[in-house]
């Protein structure tokens, strides 16, 4: 297997703009009351965890050239419901059921995309409606309220940080190793760079795509597990804005939406950056609406920057 091509050639402007942005952020953060406190650092990491875990999984899918999934929130919701519904069988069983559900639902979509070349956007819109509709149908819109609370341990903290933060770090390391130390991971970059060429070269495009989506499904399920534990019950709308939040974190991290470029560590950085900016705005008294607006601008800037880098690289 060949090594992953390293792309360089970042222009001065390409470096100056993000660095200037970072300097502004550091300046704002440093002069924001209570930003530089241990409690606030913990809060930022804690608020990064749920979206971050899903975003790490979404990174593999995007690198492998499958774009984005628009069925993420619905999948997280259904795994959360399975997790809470199986509490009476013990925590390990409940987590296993949730993860298997997430992997099965998502890998199936990956198979249709990888083997039958379905458009990921169209397919995942359909999957989102199907999963969301089926969840509403079977649950009748009623929340899942477990009698047994095995999940309480997942809300605990270790060294002041929620368990979910450690899982985020673990998932990031696992994704990084998968992408850079395994054949399937390296093939994800190649498939994402040029699917047609990868197929012509005899790479197992279908299998690689399924592996990326299966990993993503496991990550969504873990987010569902933590969301369910945090909220102590699960409604059909539990997934909330997870779909777009995860995509935003991946894009802000600099992963190319067209595939072939990016990393799990960058996505972790993107998720933390969004959380830091939201935190600074909140501490400075800006409303939720302003936070969402700034997140949108940030995503747009990241996409433009990645596009410009890619365009320059081709010249």
């Amino acid at each position, binding site marked *: 297997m060949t090594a992953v091509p390293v792309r360089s050639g970042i222009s001065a402007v390409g470096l100056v703009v993000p660095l200037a942005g970072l300097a502004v952020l550091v300046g704002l953060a440093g002069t924001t009351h*209570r930003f530089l406190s241990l409690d606030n650092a913990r809060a*930022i990491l804690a608020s990064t965890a749920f979206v971050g875990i899903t975003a790490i999984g979404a990174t593999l899918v995007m690198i492998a050239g499958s774009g984005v999934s628009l069925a993420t929130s619905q999948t997280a919701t259904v795994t959360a419901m399975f997790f809470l519904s199986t509490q009476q069988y013990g925590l390990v069983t409940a987590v296993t059921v949730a993860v298997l559900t997430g992997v099965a639902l998502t890998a199936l979509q990956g198979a249709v995309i990888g083997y039958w070349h379905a458009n990921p956007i169209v397919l995942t819109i359909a999957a989102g409606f199907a999963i969301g509709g089926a969840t509403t149908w079977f649950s009748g819109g*009623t929340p899942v309220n477990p009698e047994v609370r095995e999940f309480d341990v997942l809300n605990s903290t270790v060294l002041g940080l929620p368990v979910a933060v450690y899982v985020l770090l673990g998932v990031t390391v696992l994704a990084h190793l998968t992408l850079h130390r395994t054949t399937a991971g390296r093939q994800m970059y190649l498939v994402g760079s040029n699917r047609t060429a990868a197929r012509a070269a005899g790479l197992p495009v279908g299998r690689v795509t399924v592996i990326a989506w299966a990993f993503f499904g496991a990550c969504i399920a873990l987010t569902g597990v933590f969301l369910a534990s945090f909220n102590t019950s699960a409604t059909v709308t539990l997934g909330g804005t997870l779909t777009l939040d995860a995509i935003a974190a991946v894009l802000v991290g600099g992963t190319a939406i067209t595939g072939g470029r990016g990393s799990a560590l960058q996505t972790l950085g993107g998720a933390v950056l969004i959380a830091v900016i939201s935190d600074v705005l909140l501490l400075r008294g800006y409303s939720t609406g302003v936070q969402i607006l700034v997140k949108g601008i940030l995503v747009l800037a990241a996409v433009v920057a990645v596009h410009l880098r890619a365009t320059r690289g081709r010249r």
Partner: protein
Amino acid sequence: MHRLGLIAGALGLTLLATGCGSNAGTTGNASSADGSSSMKGKTIALVGYGSSNPWGAYFNKVFTEQLTSTGVKINDMTTMDPGTQVQKFNQALAQKPDLIVLAILDTQAMVAPIKKAKAAGVPVLAVDGPTDPSVAADVMSVLSDNEVLGEYAAQNIIEGLKAQGRETGNIIVLTGTKSMLVTQDRMKGFNKVMATAPQYRVVDEQDANWDPQLSGTIAQQLLAKHGRDGVQAAYGMADYMALPIIQAAKQAGFPIGKDGLVVTSSNCFKAGIDAVKAGELYGTATEDPGTIAKQSADYTVRFLTGKKPPQSETVKEERVTAANVDQFAEQCSHA
């Protein structure tokens, strides 16, 4: 099996008819309003909250069940998307039903459709949340008492802080969508009662958009912002917003309950009732979908049978704390 179901249904209807014959209250089946025969052939368009929302799901279920025996036809046009709701309302209008039952998602967006309904002579019954004041006279309504729900939340906080012997205290508030009148009315009631206890101060109020995940994130950040000594109480506008506050506080090392952070909500769900029983949620309030669905169904029967109910009715809300939680546990456990 099918025949058995029919027999059971007929028996049930007979029992309901006889059992509720002398009961003019709102807790029985809506057919008790003596309107079954004259409602056959009439049509209702239910442009309500979608069943993906637990509150909406139970409201729709109870409302439909209450009216099934009357013979009225109910067209399900429910949704949780404000834009789709406007479209569905317009579709309902084109069908010329005898009544449109409307649970509003976007107050402003529904102004023009309501005016159109008035011009077309199709009556509209708004349930749960109020319409924009400019069209309030154009609809009938069965409304939750949101101002009182906000008052109850403030009472819970004041009572909880006083019970801890605190002479001062800081409060954070996570609201529902601020542009909604429901949210504004709750804050109006909340602020009115909080003004009677100026020693307790709201230090932060954030729009959490009725979103549990967002509520958790904002709570984590606000608790870090103010620190353990800087927040003594929190108000999450619904149970599913208050519970993430509790989890965020626990993870940030805040004590909860009797000697810790006083957390309250203002409309009940089963998970909230469990938290009140566990001593983690100081209190909540009813606004349960079952009660308002029954009253809305009863109002519908009275209207469609020509009994001319008052233009607007308000559902009686109840405050729920550890002292009376058992009394409301069943009522609050359907969503």
